[in-house]
């Protein structure tokens, strides 16, 4: 082969590539993997790196957590996301807060005594906030203009509402054929088409709550995860669909409609439950803090909290749970020796024997009996000293103080442009990316805070028109 032919086949030049060019350079550049990771992820310096989704503009006509979260994922990855809210009212989620107590002010100029509740946090970070009342005919061209300038939209209105208002996918695709349209809601089309959605409904309707919590035989009940995990999870599932749709559009130039039922998404978390019923006709039961496939592999209660003198009951009484894992034979033997029950091991020598339900009941009781006069940290220390996997069930104070999370920047302080010093996990709870990390810019902004930026600076409406819209209550 001639050199010029070789040159033609080359897709890059070796000299231009990153990395060592000689053996000496290789030695010099060798670093332990951990050091390498620290260097490439460079936690705390995310803002010097580019945004993966820069150039994508997304509209968020969403409410609560589930659908907004699908957009904030894009916003954290660098897309320009525009949250459209009802004038002067805003997303209903703004008006909810833990025990109706934690609000950040203001909500809007016309409502100085209302604030946005902390329930809103994490689902709408980094977005621009505009207002628009779709019910007014004059708002239609404004909406379509925004559609023309955007790559997609996520909405959560009752199924078919946007279609009835002539702003559903069938209408939008005529204005912008590259548009990616997401509807997210409770059930989607089918017998419960008009059913709304809540996280708890997803957990219940999908059967997730029926297999969460302790069995009634042990005093438990069907349990929902206290936090809205199905809202967060389903929102992220939508984001996955959006990224696939963007990739598809790159290849074909065509938009997509995504119709996303939250209760449907929740069934995915059920794991083996559905196939188990299909093959064996078994209806799965709850198994609480233990595991149906591994033993010992669960959470146990110890006798004493690690903070007996704290006034906060969550610390004073509750800091006494330990996750322990010792399912391999050697580990289980060591565990039985520690709790001074060698007979347990002689009776349940194989994993097959000890993973059965009656065996688990006996084994976990024995461990808890042993831990009854010990504190959480004592139990963890003893088990770890013997080489077993054990960890305290931490609370948010301990998550905040955790060296692991601080080192990785998972939980950090942020100087919010409007709300000052705020502690967040936000974008930084979603894994590290070496080239285009997620970023947290702001928690949220007041209702309509970016009206001028979007309507005037982006769409080119004159200020007089914006003032007119505002006076009429359209924005």
């Amino acid at each position: 082969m001639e050199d010029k032919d070789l040159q033609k086949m080359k897709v890059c030049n070796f000299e231009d590539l990153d990395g060592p060019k000689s053996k000496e350079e290789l030695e010099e550049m060798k670093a332990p993997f951990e050091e390498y990771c620290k260097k490439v992820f460079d936690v705390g310096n995310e803002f010097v790196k580019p945004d993966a989704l820069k150039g994508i503009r997304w509209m968020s006509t969403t409410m609560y957590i589930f659908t907004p979260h699908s957009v904030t994922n894009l916003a954290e990855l660098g897309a320009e996301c525009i949250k459209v809210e009802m004038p002067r009212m805003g997303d209903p989620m703004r008006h909810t807060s833990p025990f109706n107590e934690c609000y950040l002010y203001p909500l809007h100029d016309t409502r100085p005594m209302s604030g946005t509740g902390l329930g809103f946090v994490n689902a709408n970070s980094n977005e621009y906030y505009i207002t628009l009342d779709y019910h007014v005919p004059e708002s239609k061209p404004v909406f379509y203009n925004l559609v023309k300038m955007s790559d997609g939209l996520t909405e959560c209105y009752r199924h078919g509402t946007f279609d009835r208002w002539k702003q559903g996918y069938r209408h939008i695709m005529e204005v912008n054929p590259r548009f990616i349209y997401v509807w997210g809601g409770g059930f989607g089309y089918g017998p419960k088409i008009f059913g709304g959605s809540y996280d708890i409904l997803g957990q219940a309707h999908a059967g997730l709550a029926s297999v969460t919590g302790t069995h009634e035989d042990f005093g438990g009940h069907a349990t929902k995860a206290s936090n809205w995990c199905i809202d967060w999870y389903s929102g992220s599932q939508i984001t996955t669909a959006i990224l696939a749709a963007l990739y598809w559009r790159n290849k074909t130039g065509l938009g997509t409609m995504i119709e996303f039922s939250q209760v449907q998404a929740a069934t995915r978390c059920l794991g083996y439950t559905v196939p188990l019923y299909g093959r064996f006709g078994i209806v799965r039961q709850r198994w609480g803090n233990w595991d149906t496939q591994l033993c010992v592999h669960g959470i146990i209660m110890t006798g004493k909290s690690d903070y007996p003198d704290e006034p906060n009951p969550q610390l004073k009484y509750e800091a006494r749970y330990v996750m322990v894992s010792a399912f391999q034979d050697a580990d289980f033997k060591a565990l039985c020796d520690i709790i001074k029950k060698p007979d347990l091991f002689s009776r349940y020598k194989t994993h097959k024997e000890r993973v059965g339900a009656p065996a688990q009941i006996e084994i976990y009781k024995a461990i808890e009996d042993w831990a009854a006069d010990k504190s959480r940290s004592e139990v963890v220390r003893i088990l770890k000293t013997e080489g077993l996997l054990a960890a305290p069930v931490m609370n948010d104070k301990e998550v905040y103080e955790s060296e692991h999370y601080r080192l990785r920047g998972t939980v950090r302080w942020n100087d919010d442009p409007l709300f000052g010093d705020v502690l967040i996990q936000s974008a930084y709870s979603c894994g590290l990316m070496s080239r285009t990390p997620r970023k947290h810019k702001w928690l949220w902004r007041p209702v309509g805070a970016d009206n001028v930026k979007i309507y005037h600076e982006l769409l080119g409406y004159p200020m007089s028109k914006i003032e007119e819209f505002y006076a009429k209550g359209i924005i």
Partner: protein
Amino acid sequence: MCDIIWCKKEKDGKVCDTVNYLDPYCFWNWEGKIACAECGTVYYIHMIQGHMYEGPDEKAGEKPDIYPLYADKPNDGYSNYLPGIEGRTRPYTCLPRHIYLGKADMVKFSARGRPVRGWRPQPPSAGVAGSHGYFWDIEKLSPEVWAEYLERLAKGEVKDW
């Protein structure tokens, strides 16, 4: 779910017949005197974990500590008293409180001692159509908080974590 005081006090030959709602966020653990929104009759109550431990006992001539948040008259075509009517119901303020005491606790510093913004009320800062800028200078917004911050800084009470 919340407890109520259904006032049956007779005044001027008419029964008051008003339901005063004891919203759980305020009254869950609470002891004191509450006035009926309609007739002003003062009742002493003592609630523990949402249960009416003592009362309601009428306390004629005494001053109330608090008003209900909301009251209505279900036998009178559901006429009601919305939150924030002076002398009848207390305002709906959404304020964080000191735990169990029902007192407002406006946080001006974060857990590590740096100033926060966003307490109530905030001055209207918007320009056209509710627009907001991207930065509020705490020193200009609230000089007294800034001064307190500098004091804390000097005392070494401001931490990184």
